[in-house]
């Protein structure tokens, strides 16, 4: 009788292990990377007076990239930019960009992106769909992301690199000031990240 119970218990454990194994294996394929702000860049450009491009950057941001190399659909991206860290090389202009005329950073200190789906286009290119939130307005955004490379940093940590360039219309996020005054609606954004495996 005791032997029968023991065998049944072992059978349950075996079944459970069979059930958990694929999940554990799936988790093993998903690798989490944290964006290294020192070696990553968020740059934007916007046309001024319909004449020339003005460039700027955000100096403070963070993000997490979960990569599933075998099944990219299981991957995800979350990225958060400190809107207060805007830097165009002119303190007067930066203060103006922080004001309610543009980013209204006191009310909306963060710009956020959260992916909703990811699919592979070719070996090094992915299509990332997600929600971009600027100044309290969330809109869907689809971007093409290029896988740049993989390696190890001087500390021996595994690192991975991606880059994307996309264009948004600032008016769609309520950042409409100056549209008639010579600052274009279209803003081209380039995000280049190096992320460290966790």
């Amino acid at each position, binding site marked *: 009788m005791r032997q029968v119970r023991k065998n049944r218990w072992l059978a349950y454990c075996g079944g459970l292990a069979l059930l958990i194994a694929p999940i554990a294996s799936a988790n093993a394929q998903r690798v989490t990377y944290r964006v290294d702000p020192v070696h990553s860049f968020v740059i934007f450009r916007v046309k001024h007076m319909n004449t020339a491009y003005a460039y700027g950057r955000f100096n403070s941001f963070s993000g997490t990239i979960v990569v599933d190399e075998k099944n990219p659909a299981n991957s995800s991206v979350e990225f958060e930019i400190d809107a207060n860290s805007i830097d165009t090389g002119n303190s*007067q202009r930066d203060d103006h960009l922080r004001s*309610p*005329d543009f980013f*209204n950073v*006191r*009310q*909306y200190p963060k710009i956020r992106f959260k992916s909703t789906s990811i699919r592979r286009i070719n070996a090094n290119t992915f299509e990332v769909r997600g929600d971009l939130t600027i100044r309290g307005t969330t809109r869907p955004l689809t971007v093409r992301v290029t896988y740049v490379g993989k390696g190890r940093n001087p500390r021996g940590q595994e690192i991975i690199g991606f880059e994307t360039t996309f264009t948004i219309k600032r008016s769609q996020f309520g950042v*409409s*000031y100056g549209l008639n005054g*010579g600052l274009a609606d279209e803003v081209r954004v380039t995000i280049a990240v190096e992320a460290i495996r966790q």
Partner: protein
Amino acid sequence: MSVVLQAALTAGVPALFAGLIWLLGGYIAPLTRFRGLLSPVAVGGGYLLAHDFVHGRPPFPPTDATHWLFYFALTGIVLGWLAELPADYRWLWGAVTLLVLSWTMVLGFKPLIQSGYWMPVNGTQIIVILTVATWLLVVLVAPNGEQEQGAGLPFLLAALGGLSAGLIFYNKSASLGQLAGSLGAIMGIGVLIGWWRRTFRLGRGAVSLALILMALLWAMAYGYAELPAHSLALLYLAGFSLALTRLKPFMRLHPMARFLLRFALLLALVGIPLWLSFQAYMATQSEYPY
């Protein structure tokens, strides 16, 4: 559209609208109560036009807290009508104004507490102080709109609007500055009408609405842009100075002396911080002209 043309439209169209409403009120002068009802429409409608030029029509509820001003201007017209109530019922205007003002301040500044820019206790204190100060300003100065006739009061309010526009502009919000400038322009058209028709009165409703909108713009510039607390306090003091003429010692003065005294006070109270802000702006040797 050029920047200059846009700025001219932002100030000019609301001013023209207000002027037309006031002139319409002038033609039906015998119906003084009706004229009192039209006057807040001139200010509130003019502000709505200005807001539309600067920001477009905001969604409801607005995502940007500063856009609550657009919806306040709409309700403010009703508050302006209440201000024209006979003296026996005027307490109702005071009470409703306090209620609406409190709610507008909470809606306008709660996001700063939610975003963590203001600590909850400090933020609440600031909201209470701003609400009480604005309510007192309106209650104390609104009667001048009924008592004073001619171009004097519109000129002082236009100067207050114009100077505060400059002050807000140099403290990093061109759009809030433009809106304050538009209020100044609306009052500026009142100066022309007051010059032409010496019996022209702005009325309690128009003065109260113009002052609340100006004070809300100052408060927004303090909360969301870079207007320093001392400049905000001086702007409020400048507003309070308009009511000085209702104090007994000032009532004995010649009307021109009363006007010049208040104008000098206004220039000192707002002109000095404006000059300091301008100097600070120039000191950065920035080539950024907005």
